[in-house]
């Protein structure tokens, strides 16, 4: 295969990854890693480097729209970024000492979990009395709803912070945004309405990914020949996805995709177990 053919196929694949990632809310990085390793037989370390870049591009692109609409809770994001960045740096450091097969198995497990998180019931309720800690840290806020601003409060700040640290470690280790864990921390633990938790999670993914990306860049994980089609393809796909989202309800697509991604996850685990990476 020539470089030109490889680039064009990867560009198309990355476009689909960005499209599906944005329609389902899983993010482009999750699809890029199996695509590169299982289809193109690229070393998982190059795949992780490319996925991190895809996560940053996706997050920054989408966040620019949500932040402007005032849905994102910037203070909450900033506060939790202490946890995710420390975790991400730690994850990138321990990645050197982790066998690539272990990383593949772990990735498969997280993929299964993400698929489950995507189809489970979302927290739509607004908490009206939060904890003292949330008040002290100025985490309670409002978001634009159908009939004006909706005020919400939150609780279990410590537990949320801990899960965020874990999300950061996994993000640094696997090169994904770990949006599913971020949403679990905010949505299920801190009781934040899911519209706020998904956009704030997205807002944080860029910073979390950047924290480990600088380490991976220096280690040579980010090959120019792979990064170029992946970044452009995922960005274009995510852009198309965000336009489509306003016109269609991706519920059916979400289920189909979650079943598909579960098979991919099992294959990653199987291959990792048989030392194929």
């Amino acid at each position, binding site marked *: *295969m*020539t*470089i*030109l053919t*490889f680039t064009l196929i990867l560009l198309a694949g990355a476009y689909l990854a960005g499209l599906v990632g944005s329609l389902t809310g899983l993010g482009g990085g999750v699809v890029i890693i199996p695509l590169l390793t299982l289809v*193109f*037989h*690229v*070393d998982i*370390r*190059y795949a992780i480097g490319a996925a991190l*870049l895809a996560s940053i*591009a996706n997050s*920054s*692109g989408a*966040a*620019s*729209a949500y*932040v*402007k609409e*005032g849905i*994102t809770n*910037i203070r909450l994001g*900033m506060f939790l*970024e*202490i946890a995710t*960045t*420390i975790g*991400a*740096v730690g994850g*990138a450091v321990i990645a*050197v000492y982790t066998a690539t097969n272990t990383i593949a198995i772990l990735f498969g497990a997280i993929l299964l979990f993400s698929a489950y998180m995507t189809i489970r019931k979302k927290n739509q309720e607004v908490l009206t009395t939060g904890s003292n800690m949330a008040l002290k*840290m*100025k985490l*309670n*806020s*409002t978001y634009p709803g159908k009939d004006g601003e909706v005020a919400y*409060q939150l609780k279990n700040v410590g537990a949320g912070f801990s899960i965020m640290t874990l999300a950061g470690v996994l993000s640094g280790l696997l090169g994904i945004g770990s949006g599913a864990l971020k949403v679990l921390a905010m949505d299920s633990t801190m009781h934040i309405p899911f519209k706020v938790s998904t956009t704030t999670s997205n807002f944080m993914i*860029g*910073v979390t990914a*950047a*924290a*480990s990306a*600088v*380490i991976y*860049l*220096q*280690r*040579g*994980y*980010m*090959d*120019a*020949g792979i*990064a*170029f*089609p992946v*970044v*452009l393809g995922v*960005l274009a796909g995510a852009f198309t996805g965000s336009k489509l989202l306003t016109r269609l309800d991706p519920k059916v697509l979400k289920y189909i995709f979650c079943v598909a991604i579960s098979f991919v996850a099992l294959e990653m685990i199987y291959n990792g177990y048989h030392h194929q990476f």
Partner: protein
Amino acid sequence: MKNLISKKTSADHDIERLIGLQLRFGVITASLIVLIGGLIYLKQFGAQAVPHYHLFIGTKAGYTSLDEIFKGAYTVNAKGIVELGVVALIITPILRIAFSLVGFIIEKDKLYTWITFTVLVIMMTSIFGGLKI
């Protein structure tokens, strides 16, 4: 009675707008640089066989330090330009933290000035801390 909800101030909205613009600008700039580098890369190497990506060679591929990347981009080396775009992409969220820091200082929000400063310090440790290995 204490105000239980921290209301968004007009300064908050200004910061939100500024952050939104900065993120968009960063992503567009980065992807343009990557596109230019990528097109030169295809023109020069497009007909060659795909490198052995199943073998990880790490830093031997070059362009893994800012110094190398800047030199590469300056001499219009395709891979150097792509990696410069990669650097621009990684810098985008880091700059966002710096913007937020300025915003919280202007708002005189001491708590969040410190929190944002902490995140920035962690990022700087990651960049300059020699955590490569």
